[in-house]
């Protein structure tokens, strides 16, 4: 678990969270404490136990692929921080060389 401190900034990168140094320090401590508590589950032998992804049996639900009206594009785009010509707009992803 000592490795956790170094991993915090990597986790923040994976989670796309810009953390301040102060936050990184705080979360390193918090996660350490929470994980120490959570590690209690290691007492249990789960060698031959199947994992549960879902509490109740799930079956695939099929339906015909039929076009149905959705919310109007303008209504949806009005919720976006930025849009151009009927599309979501984001900062440039590929540099123009």
């Amino acid at each position, binding site marked *: 678990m000592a490795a956790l401190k170094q991993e915090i900034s990597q986790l923040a*990168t994976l989670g796309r969270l810009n953390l301040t140094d102060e936050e990184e320090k705080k979360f390193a401590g918090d996660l350490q404490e929470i994980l120490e508590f959570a590690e209690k589950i290691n007492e249990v032998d789960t060698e031959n136990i199947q994992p549960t992804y879902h509490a109740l049996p799930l079956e695939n639900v099929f339906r015909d692929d039929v076009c149905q009206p959705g919310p109007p594009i303008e209504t949806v785009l009005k919720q976006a921080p930025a849009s151009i010509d009927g599309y979501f707009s984001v900062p440039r992803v590929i540099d123009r060389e």
Partner: protein
Amino acid sequence: MNNQLSQLSLLELSQLLEAQEITAVELMETTVERYRQLDSDIKSFLYFDLDESLETAKKQDSLERKSALHGIPLAIKDNISRLGKPLTCSSKILAGHRPPYSATVVEKLEQAGGIFVGNTNMDEFAMGSSTETSAYQTTRNPWDLERVPGGSSGGSAAAVAAGIVPAALGSDTGGSIRQPAAFCGVVGFKPTYGRVSRYGLFPFASSLDQIGPIARTVSDVAFLTELLAGSDSRDSTSLDSPVPRYLEQLQPRAEGLTFGIPEEYFGEGVDSDVRQIIQQTIETLKQQGAEIKTVNLPHTKYAISTYYILATAEASSNLARYDGVQYGYRADEPDDLIDMYSRTRAEGFGPEVKRRIMLGTFVLSSGYYEAYYGKAQKLRTLIKQDFDRVYEECDLLLTPTTPSTAFKLGEKIDDPVQMYLSDILTASTNLAGLPAISIPVGQDSKQLPVGAQLIGPALSEQTVLNAAFMLEKQSQWDAKIAPVQA
């Protein structure tokens, strides 16, 4: 008249409307007045549609009654979509958002004539047990304004307890309906996973989340559950099983039933006052002809660890959608796409949400996945098997809903592990997908409400409601309103 109306249950109000002794407008005026009197102290609502609620009430008065819900004011947790109405999940990252569609539960209750008056405060993205992680305001417990209402559906529970509305919707991922219901002295019901469609519920942990009603009587909760339940083509995890007439079939019944009392739910963390009142509840069950059996759910002590590993893993994935592209907040002048994502999320999320994204990212990261996430999924199997085993010998389980009554504001907010332990008696049922209700059965020495929890096997809603109905009649609690005054 006004204060009398706020004392009445949903079905009592419905009878007055049906008999034309009151109009929907009169009822709404009372609701608005009570909101104005009380909510500056309690702060249960994030916003309240004053004008539109009165308009809608006027319209409902002019229409033929659609159901017993016709003209009834309702509150809704701030994570359930209503077309065009502000929704934030109590987070800055959704400030200004107005969903372009309504949740299935909203469509159902509105079609039945219910009027949603506004959205209630919650823990940010339902992550918390006190409603203190809200980015906007601190909701207070109507029984003691220095205490938390519980969480994460704290605003809904407080609004119902204060008599502002007769009922509200909440969501429950690890206890978020039942724990605030217990803290606020109201009835809160989490149906079987999939019984109610989640379409339009902003997800926290999709394999655990369930929408349910909060009200002041078991009858009201039975009535609302019947309206809410049913399969939905827009939620492939909703159950395709017929919906019983819960209200029509509601009868106070414990006779002939065997109630399991799980020893693990009465451990050292449970306050003596709470224990004593639940003990009295057990005596009541005996007097009513129920058989009582001590049972064991041996993996209960691992439930909180299992729950927080699985819930944060699912949350870190679900919350990836808040990236500043399609809706919600975007950081100013980003350098590039990654900078936009990372600063949008850093500026938009509060500390508890960040903590859980970090934890969820950790337990899913390569090298740790098997040790944490994989292991917790196996524990989930064992926890579920514990329940399967006890339901071979009993019909329902009776436990306290919470280890203590409402704690003080600020008491646990800086100690994540202590806060997480608030869910110790409720989280297992989400892991197993079971229906569970919290009903008020007494008050502790500080006059704070104590909740009893009944947990049943999957799809045993009627049995759970019937036993709760019996306890409600016997406890002489009688749908008390919290003693708040303007």
